[in-house]
C-alpha cells in the first residue's frame, strides 16, 4: 500500500465519504466522539486504556481496544499492525493535538478529529486483508488493521 493512497485521499474526499470498495466491505461500524475520555462511547473500552494518557492496546473477550495519540507529526505508539479476527470488534480511540480527519481504509470510516478530544471508532473485521488507518493533515499513517 502506498503512501500515495493517503495523499490521494486528501483531495479525493468523495472517495472517503462515499466509501471504499475494497474493503472491510460489509463491516459494520459506529462511532462516537466525546470530549471526556472516561465517557467514551465505547462499551468495550477498558478503564485502564481510556484513562491512560499515552496509549495501549488491549484484548478483551468483547474485542480489541487500541488508543493512539498524535502530537504534531508524532504518532504514539509508533505505527504497527493490529491483528483482528474475522468478526472481532476493534475499538479505536484517537486523540490529536490538532484538528484533523481520521480515515480508515476499507471500512468507509472518516471522522473529524477535534484538537485534544479523544474520538472513538468501533469496527468489526469482515473481509480478510490489511487496512490502513491514517490522518490527512498532515498525512500520517497511524496503524494497520490486519483482518485474518
Amino acid at each position, binding site marked *: 500500500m*502506498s*503512501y500515495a493512497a493517503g495523499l490521494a485521499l486528501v483531495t479525493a474526499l468523495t*472517495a472517503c465519504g462515499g*466509501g*471504499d470498495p*475494497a474493503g472491510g466491505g460489509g463491516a459494520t461500524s459506529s462511532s462516537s466522539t466525546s470530549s471526556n475520555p472516561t465517557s467514551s462511547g465505547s462499551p468495550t473500552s477498558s478503564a485502564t486504556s481510556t484513562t491512560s494518557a499515552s496509549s495501549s492496546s488491549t484484548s478483551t473477550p468483547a474485542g480489541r481496544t487500541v488508543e493512539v495519540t498524535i502530537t504534531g507529526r508524532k504518532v504514539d505508539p509508533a*505505527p504497527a499492525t493490529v491483528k483482528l479476527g474475522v468478526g472481532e470488534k476493534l475499538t479505536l480511540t484517537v486523540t490529536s493535538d490538532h484538528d484533523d480527519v481520521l480515515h480508515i481504509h476499507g471500512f468507509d470510516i472518516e471522522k473529524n478529529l477535534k484538537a485534544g478530544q479523544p474520538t472513538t471508532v468501533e469496527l468489526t473485521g469482515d*473481509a*480478510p486483508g490489511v487496512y490502513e488507518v491514517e490522518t490527512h493533515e498532515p498525512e500520517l499513517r497511524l496503524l494497520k488493521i490486519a483482518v485474518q
Partner: protein
Amino acid sequence: MTLGVLAALPAHGVGSREDLPLPFSYLLVGAGLALVISFVALGALWKTPRLRDTDGRLVPKTLALALDSPALRGIAVLATLFVAAWTLMSLVFGKDNANNPVASVVYVWLWVGLAFLSMLVGGVWRLVNPLRWLHAGLLRLARVEPDFALAEYRLGYWPAAVGLAAFVWLELIAPDNADLPVLRVAVFGYLLVGVILSLVFGRPYLRRGDAFTAWSSLYGTLSPLGRRADGRWVWRTPLHGPLQVGFDRGLLAVCAVLLGTTAYDGFSGESRWYGFVQGRSFPRLWETAGLLGVCLVVAGSLALAAWLSARLARVSWHGVASAFAPSLIPIAAGYLIAHYWSLWVWEGTNGLSKFSDPLGTGGNWLGTAGVTPAAALITPSLVAAIQVVAIITGHVLGVVVAHERALALFPRRAAVAGQVPLLVLMVIYTVGGLTLLFSS
C-alpha cells in the same frame, strides 16, 4: 456495489485493501527453496552454453500469419488509441473525483496491466505506443520522411530508466497524485517530452528510450511467444528472451529500476520505515531518497557481484555487470506479480467499471459499469501461494539466465566459481523480497 461508492485511490493505494502478510512458514520454505535450488543448479546445470537465439518451436503457420497480419496489428493499435483518447477525454473533461477512471488507467492498467500483458504476449507497447503514432502522424502532416531525426540517438535505456523512476515517484511519493490537475501535468508532460525527444532522435528513441516501451519490452522478453534469430515466431522458454536483450547504455540502470521500484513499494509499507519518515520535516525528500537509494543498492550490488565474479573467473570486469543485468528481469517480474496481483484483480476491474463513465455523468457508455472484481482470485491463501510461486519462479529463471551468461562470458574451468557471488546476491534479493511480503 454501485458506481457511486467506488473509491478512486491510485495504484497500490488503489484500493484500500492490502494483502495479508505472507505466513512465516511460506517465508521459510521459499527462502530455503531459493537457497537449495541455486546451489544445486550450480552443480547440476549444463556446462557449456546451450540457449541460443535460434532455439524455439515454430508456432502454427496460421498463428504466425495472424501475428504478423496488418489486420490484427491494426486492431491492437486502434484499440490502444481508443483507450488513450478515451482516457484523455476523462483527463480533460471528466470530474475530479473518485469515480474518474484516469488514475486507474495510469497507475494500474498502464503499469501493472501492461507488464502482465507483456509477460504473456511479448513487448507489445513498441507497436501500440500512442506516442509512436503521434510521432508518425506529425511527420506525415509535415510531409517529412518517417525516419527523420535531427540527431543520432545514443542515450540507450537511460531515458527509460529515468522515466520509469519518475513514474514510480509520481505513483508512490508525489502529493495529490490521483487528482486531475496533477495527472494532467504528468500525462501531458510525458506526451510533450516524448514528442520532442522522438522528433529530435527519431524512431530509435521510441524503440529504446520510451519508458513504457522499455517496461513492456523487458518484461515481454519473458513471454513464451517470441521471434528467434531469423525473425520467425516461436514458442520458447522465458530464459531465451532475457538472453536476447542486447547491450545498450543504461541497461544496468533500467534493470535496477525494474527491481528497485517494486522493492521500494514493498519497503515503503514497512511500518518502521514510514513511522520514521512521517515524523521528519520533509517526508517526501526522505521517501525520494529511499526510492533512489533502493535502485542504487540494486545496481550497486549487482555491479559489485559482477566485479567479484569477474575477479574469480579472472576476466576483465568491463561490461560484466551489464551482461548480467537481464538476469534481474525474471526476478523483478516475480516481485511484480507477487506485489501487484491482488491490486491488478481489484483495481484493474474497478477501473474498467469507472471507465464506462468517463465524464462522471453517471453514464454507462461501454456497458462495463457493473463489473466487480472476482473475490475468488484474491483469497488470502491463493494470494500467498501466488506470491511465493512467483518469487521462487523468478528466482530460478534469474539463476539459470545468469548461469548461461556466465558460461558464455567466463572460461569453462572458472565458470562455476565465477557464478557464486551472483547466486549469493540473487538469494539475498529473493529472501529480501519474501521478507518484505512477510513483514509489511
